[in-house]
């Protein structure tokens, strides 16, 4: 028998997607972030705002950040990488053994967006290494997601719940 004292909380409609699709997208993101880091490490012209805002590594980083924003706001099922996956990869792999709720990878896109946005702002403000550090953190998350099927929502979400609860108990 299975009991569920707190029955389903899901109120918004959930979309079920091929779980390999977000992992494929995270792979592309990881490669792009490696390129961002490489270009930024090679870049020595970071004295003025104009130099920082037009550096190739930075421009690619802006594109990655925008893609995270897209995935987080429109839902991962409407991400362009998802369209590439369905068009070119799905026909070669066949249908998935199981499907997953798009809410979890969409949450991960939101986490990626926050990390990259902070790096982007700090870099423009002239904080040294901000871009490289933010891109490295986002790379590690994307790499773990893609290669190891690491579930960011399983860890981060609980952390948020606990912090919120601790704060509520303290006040």
């Amino acid at each position: 028998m299975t009991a569920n004292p707190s029955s389903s909380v899901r109120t918004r409609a959930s979309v079920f997607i091929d779980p390999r699709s977000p992992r494929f997208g995270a792979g592309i993101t990881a490669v792009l972030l490696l390129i961002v880091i490489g270009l930024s490490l090679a870049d020595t012209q970071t004295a003025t705002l104009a130099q920082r805002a037009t550096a190739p590594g930075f421009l690619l980083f802006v594109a990655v950040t925008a893609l995270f924003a897209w995935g987080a706001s429109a839902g991962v099922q409407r991400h362009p990488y998802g369209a590439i996956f369905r068009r070119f990869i799905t026909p070669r792999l066949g249908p998935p053994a199981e499907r997953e709720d798009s809410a979890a990878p969409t949450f991960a896109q939101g986490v990626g967006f926050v990390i990259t946005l902070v790096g982007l702002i700090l870099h423009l403000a002239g904080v040294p290494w901000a871009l490289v550090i933010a891109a490295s953190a986002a790379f590690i998350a994307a790499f773990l997601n893609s290669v190891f099927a690491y579930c960011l929502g399983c860890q981060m979400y609980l952390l948020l719940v606990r912090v919120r609860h601790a704060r509520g108990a303290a006040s």
Partner: protein
Amino acid sequence: MNPISIAASLLGLVALATVLGLVWRRGQGRITTPSDVRLIAPSSLGLESWAPGVTLLQFSSPLCSPCKTTNVVLSALAAAQDSVSHVDIDISERPELATLFNIAQTPTTFILDRDGALRARIGGAVKRDTVIAELDSILVAA
């Protein structure tokens, strides 16, 4: 930075991420048996009683795909044996439980005997064989 140092940095980053991933994967589904006996009251989870054999107490969160696979495995095990039950608790509705039981990830599964003693806990997606082995050892001893 010169090209060689850049390449070395990028390789180092990939290596670091790989090590982190391997460590994380090793911990997934691993069973730990607490050294001291901890009794959990069924009322603390809004339940009337524990199962006559073993209760599989799962903690889940809404944004968690492995929670769903774990739910499928555990509910099938519970359905196969009358004395075993499965309870799935959404931690977002009971955030105090995360602090109380020191739950760091979802899914986390507690294996409780009929007295409500915490016999084992499993972090991450469960492996069916691990759970069966633990179930058998508790049910045989009882």
